[in-house]
């Protein structure tokens, strides 16, 4: 993909005016991670109600791709069923971003938010729901992202 394709108006807008930026007090799900290669940081907070995502926020530092990706991800899952959220894939995220063909050097930026989300769900499912079978599967998916 060329830069002109990547840095479209919408990506820049989400980078400069991130939706759902901030924190939730005492969230049901809370996870922070960083990309050791580039130093990008991301923290995500989620509340659940009746198995739906009732609120979601993120904070972070990083490139346009990672921050836009995180912000768009929060919009994608807001109000959604938890089962749907659990099943989100790499491809879903890249499509949602409109960046299906990112090269190997930058795909990690786009997927950091999904990784944080999955590790957050993993902690929630294993610690709060005590469902270790599902949890292990999710952890494996998360660590397989990059």
């Amino acid at each position: 993909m060329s830069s002109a394709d990547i840095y479209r108006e919408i990506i820049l807008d989400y980078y400069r005016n991130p939706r759902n930026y901030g924190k939730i007090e005492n969230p049901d799900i809370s996870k922070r991670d960083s990309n050791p290669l580039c130093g990008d940081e991301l923290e995500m907070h989620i509340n659940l109600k009746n198995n739906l995502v009732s609120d979601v926020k993120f904070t972070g530092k990083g490139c346009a791709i990672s921050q836009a990706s995180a912000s768009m991800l929060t919009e994608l899952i807001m109000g959604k069923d938890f089962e749907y959220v659990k099943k989100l894939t790499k491809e879903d995220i890249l499509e949602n971003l409109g960046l299906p063909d990112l090269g190997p050097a930058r795909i990690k930026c786009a997927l950091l938010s999904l990784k944080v989300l999955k590790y957050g769900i993993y902690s929630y499912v294993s610690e709060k729901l005590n469902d270790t079978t599902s949890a292990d599967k999710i952890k494996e998916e998360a660590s397989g992202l990059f």
Partner: protein
Amino acid sequence: MQTSTINIENIRRDFPILQRKVRNNKPLVYFDNAATTQKPIQVINSIHNYYLNYNSNIHRAVHQLAEEATAAYELTRDKVAKFINIKNREELIFVRGTTEAINLVSYSWGRQNVQKGDIVLTTEYEHHSNIVPWQLLTKEKEAKLEYIGVDDNGELILDQLNAYLDTGRVKLVTFSHMSNVLGTITNADEIIKQCHKKGVKVLVDAAQSVPHMKVDLQKLDCDFFAFSAHKMLGPTGVGVLWARKAILENMQPFNGGGDMIREVHKYETTWNDLPYKFEAGTPNIADVIGFSAALDYLENIGMDKVREHEIELTKYALEKMLTIKGIKLYGTPDMKKRGGVISFNLGDIHPHDLATIIDEDGVAIRSGHHCAQVLMERLDVSATSRASFYIYNTKEEVDVFIRSLNRAKELFRI
């Protein structure tokens, strides 16, 4: 120019150094393969090609050269995983060689897990690389280093293993999968079974086995496994440590620096994921990439074929050597239990003198203690001569070697 198993003529064409003449214009007969092997043109060109076309530091940049170099470097990890049949590529750590791999385990795992009074158990036929790190560790920890003995056939006396295990103090058993002096193939399955019964960890020094026979780590079931690229057609400066994920995750880092960290702050730091946690600093990028070509080369021939070829050559050499009066051969005559390494002494000719004489005929062997002084003490010799074979060696070369041994005898008037 042929054993029954592989097409040596084709193979020899891939090794330009074998065309070389040494000393008084003698064709090179390279029998020092246990020290380091020669490299096929595919490996040499792969390094060349890297520097000509895509040299770059890896992992942390987005430009095209970095992308290409990173992909090629990581591809080698995948190939190593396939070569020794392990599932998790992140369990593979690139180091300089077997020596560094063992020291890494000693520093990172050993200092955490070996306490005062504990025993680290090694064997009498180890390379110094699998003795000295444990001497340093056990001295620091006031623990003990003990040895499984070697019998007159050059095999380990496994009864002694059980006696040590019964003390309940053994934390690690560490042994060479194939002796670099005697060629003995260790009964690794048995040792590992006994150790794991008692929850004792096992390190396998595979510097001499992986290059010469098929090794399947899912079957071997050890805990740590180390080998060197330069002894299996690969470049100098590259080695591999494999260890189980669960163990690596609980180990302290070894070297600190770039690449092995997640976040560095002034007063605290977190570690990167495996395997990077153990790969501090700019790695030996070009040579890791070159190692890929070596693995491809060996896969192409097939490790079973490599082993068969060496058995045939070793048998041939042993038979011829036995006809020389005054020769003393070390190690077992049972070909199933030994690799293509032959240690010997000829009359009262000191190995150094022997090596000098046959070098004049173009024959390169090694002489001395082979970094195995503990074994030399056990054998009650100060040194041996050692001929060791690889895929490009031929029976004709063995004949040259034998003629040269006879010339040495004449020179020494025996």
